[in-house]
């Protein structure tokens, strides 16, 4: 089984970041890391590949050409990576991102495409579905459990009231939630091997797209203003000296709950 996993490098959430006041784009510091939510997709991919003697290729895009996060993903055990690297990608919206990823995946002839449900930094939450539509694939989304059925994939799909069991034949796209698996940690050997694994870095031109079709120019939306939300101020803080529960009782009485 050949599996493609969509992954994203994001600013390290431990490092404060904001928006560029002029361009309104996310300021992307040098210390890019693998989006934590992608570890679940990689783990699902590795398990499916291990059971079928298959392979796992990472697919990503990187306006700045950084690869730190990709190396982290390769260290978990993925075989190789395709990272579309082109400054023209800066400012791409969800649909443009999906077009670029779909163009990269199309060349791979994958049986299964896996993605997280949404990225931690942009969280538009629609890129996997857009990729599926562009590639004319069924999409088994919001999976909290994934299993191969021989000629297809079966998942447990989260719904608003519980879960559904959903099946589709290959080729198929799956979006996975954090409930699906427990991601493995990279081993020292994995980290060493990651350094020598193949990372192809095509430009948008190599994928048959023009710079005008991607980035800010290719996106049909533009941020016009960024402003602070009306702040909710902190109220009273009490340190529990054994009697703090009485303050809670008082607050509940005031709110007419009791």
């Amino acid at each position, binding site marked *: 089984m050949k599996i493609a996993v969509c992954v994203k490098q994001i600013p390290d959430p431990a490092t404060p970041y904001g928006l560029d006041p002029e361009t309104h784009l996310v300021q992307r510091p040098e210390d890019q890391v693998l989006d934590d939510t992608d570890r679940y997709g990689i783990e699902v991919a590795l398990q499916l590949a291990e059971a079928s003697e298959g392979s796992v290729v990472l697919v990503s895009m990187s306006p700045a050409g950084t690869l730190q996060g990709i190396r982290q993903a390769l260290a978990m055990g993925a075989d190789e990576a395709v990272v579309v690297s082109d400054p023209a990608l800066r400012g791409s919206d969800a649909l443009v991102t999906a077009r670029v990823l779909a163009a990269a995946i199309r060349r791979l002839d994958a049986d299964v495409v896996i993605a997280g449900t949404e990225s931690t930094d942009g969280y538009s939450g*629609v890129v996997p579905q*857009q990729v*599926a539509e562009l590639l004319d694939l069924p999409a088994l989304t919001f999976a*909290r459990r994934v299993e191969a059925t021989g000629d297809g994939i079966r998942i447990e799909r989260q719904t*608003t009231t*519980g879960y559904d069991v959903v099946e589709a034949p290959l080729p198929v796209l799956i979006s996975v939630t*954090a409930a699906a698996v427990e991601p493995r940690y990279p081993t020292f050997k994995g980290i060493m091997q990651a350094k020598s694994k193949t990372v192809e870095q095509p430009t948008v031109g190599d994928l048959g797209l023009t710079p005008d079709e991607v980035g800010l120019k290719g996106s049909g939306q533009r941020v016009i203003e960024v402003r602070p939300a009306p702040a*909710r101020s902190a109220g009273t803080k009490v340190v529990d000296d054994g009697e703090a529960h009485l303050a809670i009782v008082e607050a509940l009485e005031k709110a007419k*709950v009791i």
Partner: protein
Amino acid sequence: MKTLVFAEGTPAGPSASSLELLAKAREVGDPSVFFAGEGSDATWAALGAHGATTVHHLEIGDSLPAAGAAASMAALIELEAPDLVLFGLNPTDRDTAGRLSARLGVPLISNAVEIDTSKTPITVTNEILGGTTLVETEFTAGSPHLVVVRPKSFIATEVGGGTPTVTAAPPTGDGPAMSARVVERHEEASTGPKLTEADVIVSGGRGMGAPENFEIIERLARRLGAAVGATRAVVDAGWVPYSMQVGQTGKTVKPNVYIACGISGAMQHLVGMKDSSVIIAINKDEEAPIFGVADLGVVGDVHKVLPKLLEALGE
């Protein structure tokens, strides 16, 4: 302005988000609904009561709805040319919105909390960085404008409209994308009030320490007639079901009182609960971000404070 609202059929009727979106669509003018699922007279009446004048109905059988719904909606959009198409944030809403965007080649703005249709072009506001920052985005591409709206951004209200005209939505066609099938459905029954409708919510996070410690949260909730919520970390760890998750990837709640027990206040959680009227937080770490939004912050050990609270409440 013509607006089309996506509605998924649920066992309880039209999705809650579709009724919220109809409130906005009504304000903009001339709302119609694309309904995917099993319809009934009660469902049509509910949609009509919330202001829908036309319902385009797609029967989906055991198909996973999104691929067929997107194909049918694309055909409908060609005929009706709506300016604005609105979706909720439920899984099927997101699936359909994403597919429709790709199919039509038009952009989509997600996580909207406000839509300003008085501006040309339309602008959409969403929240980032845990709700601390608002971003206003305009569509530079032509219509239809597709928007995915966060729950509770608009308030569902009945306006006493009559039964809408119900017509069959355009056929879905066929293709590999439509081959996903639902083979089993499972409802996860919960007791007490629903999280999204509850007046009071008691929520637990990692600070509860272990799954069995959630019992005291449930006892407090029972005493207060409250619903039980949880953070993503606790749901991911398998302590409680996903249906209890409050936050960016879970439910958005706006109760009268929200009691956060052992919750540090990660951005992902704050987004889902910061609009509660009164927030009470109990946490050991006095630097926890939750104290930045709490009306009453108790710096203390939940395992000591909660038993005393229950005792004081005469449980």
